Every structure is written in C-alpha cells, then in structure tokens.
C-alpha cells in the first residue's frame, strides 16, 4: 500500500533474495539473514537474561509494563538472535510489555526439537517465577511464529497454564512446503525463492519427518489454543502457511484474527523504521494482546470476604424479568427471561 513498502520490497528482491538464493551453506545463509542493524530507541534497554537455563535478553522500556511478552525470533530455526529482532521487541516494550527474548539453540548444530525445548523451558520458568499467565502473551515471526505455536502445543500437552493470547507474523507452519504459494509466489516474494524454505527446513529437521506437529504446527491438532492474531503479506511464499493454519485453527474452535497485507515483504515488522505498515502491524498486534491481558489481575476486587449465601442468588426455578418498557414505546420486545434449564447465573 505505501510507496515505502513497494520500494523496500523491490530493493529486498534485488539484494537479499538473490544473496540468500545463492548461499551455498549455513554460514552464508546466516550471514545474509543476520545482516540487519537496528538502533534501539532511547527509552528502551536490553539486559541479559537467563530463564529455565536458556540465555537471552529482557527488552524493557521506561514505560510501565504490567504485561509480559515472550518473543520468539525468526530466522528459519538456523539463524538470527534476540539482537537481530530488536526492531520488533523494542516496539512491543514501548507498548507496555516486558519482553523476554530467548536465544534458543539453532540448527543445524542443534536440530529439532532443541528450539522447542528451549522455548518450553523459558516459558515454564516465567510461570514458575510467579508471572500471572493471564498477563503473559506470546509473539513470534516466521520460524519464531511456528515455534510459538509449537510452544502452545507443548503447554497444552504438559498442562501448563496457557498464555492469554499469541500474535504471529508470517509464521512458518509447514516444513513440508506443500502450500500453493511456495511456487505461486516464488517470483513475487520479496525475500525468498520458494525452494529456500525446504532447504532451511532440512537444517532444522535433521532427518525428522517434516510433518511432525511440533516442527510443523499445521499438522497438529489445534484445539484449546488461546486467541491468535496472524498477520501475513499477500505476496509471500509463506502466505499459505498462514492461511491454512488460520483455517485449521478456526475449525478447531480457536479464536483467530487474520489480516493479509498487500505489498509488504516477509516480516515487514522488522523494517518498521522504513515501512509504515510495520508499525501499524506491531501496533495492531499490541492492541490485540493488551485487550486480552487487560483485567486479568489476580487482585482483590470490591467483593467482601463475607460469604454470599446461596439464598442471595436467584435459584434455577426463578424467572427474572427486565423492567417493562414504558407505555407508548414503539417496539414490542419480548421480556428477557431466565428460567429453569438456562442457568446463566451459574455458567
């Protein structure tokens, strides 16, 4: 939509995409992916952290931050770091999150499921440290988005308390690369030739089946996940990783919000200094996440400690009526009723 998105995509296509397509090994691919620079805003600080044995950084702003966000960076599971993704994490910090960014182990030195183990260890450690899961959210881009989904699956498997919501930017959900957009957007995608996705996936899988759910959450059973937000670019080879995931999540009863953005490159949020849609996406994701943590405090309410006896509540046999509309009212609305068999008070 913006001229900046179009120009930036054009430049990426001529430079980044070609270099990445030409990379002959992991070291060369990493060099391309790690090449971004970002200067932290004045009001944001990164400090080293260790959660559950996993190193990383806390990214915090001077703004008060009652909510915690666990951010899982992208990079195909084989590249990048908390540092490379500060454009996103610092923006979240300014929106009122204390951002925990684990430096999870990377492939091929540490293949699947090392990244998942590290994400899980960091999350469990945050919960153990006393953070209220109602005020804890996840976010991730690209492989980090896939990793966030894998983490949610592990949280569910282990019976840990779920975070309040998750925001995913162009998540990588299918290491078997069966999406139509892998080929359909091969030329159009600003960052990747479709074939690169499979090459990167192989580094991570280390021989495992690409349809393993914790590596490719598209193949997982997605029931009982918290509300999800997914933002993806219309031109990306990974478009169908997002679209199919959203379809399957909705079919499984998960609340999902999807927004597909024209003209933007993969993980455009990281380029928000140049591309206004980057800030817009991050701001929208922040709003989505903050709306779902709001009011989840475990704090004293105005309710008395005195026990409210059963006699104070309407029993299932009672019928309640709303006040009758005044004489001369134009509409004849039926009076709302609560009767036996519809225990709304007790649900």
């Amino acid at each position: 939509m913006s001229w900046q998105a179009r120009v930036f995509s054009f430049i990426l296509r001529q430079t980044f995409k070609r270099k990445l397509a030409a990379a002959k090994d992991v070291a060369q691919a990493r060099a391309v992916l790690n090449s971004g620079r970002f200067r932290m805003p004045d009001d944001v600080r990164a400090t080293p952290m260790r959660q559950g044995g996993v190193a990383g950084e806390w990214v915090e702003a001077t703004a008060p931050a009652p909510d915690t966000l666990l951010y899982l960076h992208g990079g195909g599971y084989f590249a990048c770091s908390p540092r490379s993704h500060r454009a996103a994490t610092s923006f979240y910090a300014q929106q009122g999150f204390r951002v925990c960014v684990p430096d999870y182990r990377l492939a091929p030195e540490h293949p699947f499921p090392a990244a998942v183990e590290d994400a899980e260890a960091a999350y469990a450690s945050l919960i153990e440290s006393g953070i209220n899961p109602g005020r804890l959210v996840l976010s991730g881009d690209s492989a980090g988005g896939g990793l966030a989904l894998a983490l949610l699956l592990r949280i569910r498997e282990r019976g840990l308390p779920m975070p309040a919501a998750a925001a995913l930017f162009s998540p990588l959900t299918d290491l078997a690369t069966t999406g139509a957009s892998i080929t359909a957007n091969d030329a159009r995608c600003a960052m990747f030739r479709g074939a690169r996705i499979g090459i990167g996936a192989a580094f991570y899988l280390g021989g495992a089946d690409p349809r393993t759910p914790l590596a490719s959450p598209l193949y997982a059973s997605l029931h009982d996940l918290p509300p999800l937000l997914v933002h993806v670019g219309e031109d990306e080879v990974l478009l169908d990783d997002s679209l199919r995931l959203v379809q399957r999540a909705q079919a499984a009863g998960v609340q999902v919000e999807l927004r597909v953005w024209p003209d933007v490159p993969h993980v455009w949020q990281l380029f928000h200094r140049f591309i206004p849609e980057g800030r817009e996406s991050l701001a929208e994701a922040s709003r989505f996440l903050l709306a779902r943590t709001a009011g989840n405090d475990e704090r004293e309410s105005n309710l008395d400690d005195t026990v409210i006896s059963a006699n104070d509540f309407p029993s299932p046999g009672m019928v309640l009526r709303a006040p009758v509309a005044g004489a001369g009212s134009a509409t004849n609305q039926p009076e709302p009723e609560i009767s036996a068999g519809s225990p709304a008070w007790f649900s």
Partner: protein
Amino acid sequence: MLHPQARALLDLIEQRAVPPTHSLTVDDARRFYRERRFFTQPDTPEVGHVEDLRVDGTLPLRLYKPLHAAAGLLPVLVYFHGGGWTIGDLDTHDTLCRQLANGSGCAVVSVDYRLGPEHRFPAAVDDSRSALHWVHANAASLGLDAARLAVGGDSAGGNLAAVVAIDARDNGGPQLAFQLLIYPATDMRAIAASHFTNGQGYLLTSNTVRYFHDHYIDDPKHDLDWRASPLLHPDLSRLPPAFILTAGFDPLRDEGLMYAQRLSEAGTRTTSICFDRQIHGFITMGRVIDEANAAVDICASQLRTALLG
C-alpha cells in the same frame, strides 16, 4: 460505524476544501479556531455569573457560576481548554464551560495557559498548576469551596488536567475530588494502534497531531516525561476519581482507553465511556452533532455527582 452527522461534517469540510490545520501558520490556525467555532458550537447559554480574572496579575482565567446556583460556597472545576497546546483560548471553549457549569451546578474556572511554540513544554503545565493553586488559595474570596475541587479538560486540556492531578498528589497540591478527561492526549510517542487506524480522514489527522506536538515539544526526550505523557508515570494509584471520555474514530482513542485501564488497575476509581461513532473534538460540536449534547450532559452529570454528592 461513523455517526452520519460526523460523516456529514467531514464531507462538508472536504467539499469546502477547508485547509487542514497542519498546513496553516499558527496565527491562522488560532484565528480560524476562534472564528469558525460558531458553525459547530451550540448557542451560548446564559450563566449566573461570569468574570475575567488573573492569577497574580498575569495568567488570565474566566470564572463561571451556574444559573440557579446553590447558596454558600460552590464546588469548582478548573478547566483546561483543548487545541493541541498551540491554539484555543477562553473564548473557543466559553460555550462548553457555560454548559458544564449550568449542567453540574458547579463553578468552572477556565485557564488561558501559555501556548506553543512561543511558550513550549512545560509552560502549559506550569500555568495549569499555578491556576489550580491560585483557585485553591483564593477560593473563599471567590465564593468557591476549596474542599470540593476538580480538574478537567478536553484533548490537550485533558492532558494538562491528568498531569496536574498527578502533580497535586505528589507535590503537596490541593486535594482533588475528581478529574474529567475528555479525549485526553496521554502519550506523546503516538504509537498506539488508533494512531494508525484513525490517522487519516477524521478531522484530527496524524499530520495535525504531529504539528501540535512539534509546537509544544522540541526535545524528543520530553516525550518520555510524565508531565507530557502521563500514561508513562509508574504510579497511577491514589489519584482523584476519573471520568474518561473517548471517541471511536479518534487517533487518541487508544491512549485514552489505556490511561483509564491503567488508572483502574492501579486502584483509582475510573469510569471510561467511548462514543464509538464519534471523532476527536466532537464535544464542542453540538450544533451539528447530537451526541455532543449527550456527552456534555454526561460530563456535567458526573461532575455534579462527584462534587455535589
């Protein structure tokens, strides 16, 4: 869904090719704000008493007493007008102050704080504090009750009211009974989602937000100062009970909602009402937008409850 009357107003503005505020010189912007208010503001109501005053011979104030004022000392709202800390004065918000006085049964003191760019941050904050302290100290001689004091404002004025309320708590200021914040600016960083979704086409645009900001603040580190961005203050507890009004199509909507949420979470009693179909600035447009009159009624009623019990 934008209210059809708000839509009609925006369409008219576009049809008439009214130049946007951010394209004007400050003098022109001030003049237009004063001169064009009659198109959108309702008729100016009579009040019981109106008087121009000055704080120590300098800072101008205007005192309003309502029609049918109760006997004895009146509770008082110290009011800070909107206008991006750059435009606006005692006249642009004269009608609103009269409406609030009559509707609440309380006195209102409107403050003509110094504007940018001639007087940048924190001049407006300093003036707002001075005005509040002066009203408190001189209340009895003005027929006002120093024990029943509220602060309030719209837009930039809401920002000043919020800041002054925090200052009163922390720096030995007067005890305040209430704060009335009408679509307040609470975060100079302008990074909340509504700045993006509502930044074009709803009268207050991102360009105008930036124009006003830049006339008030020239050093970006001030954006992080709580006296400019009260949302960034680490302690929003023990503040006066608050009524915060926001508008659905306002770029400032989310920072207003977030301020209300943070106040509530800190234990400050807060009511937050969003007029979903409205634009920034609507409360002074009662001649052309009906909901403005309801909004004024609600604000006056909240003020009455807080100060007159």
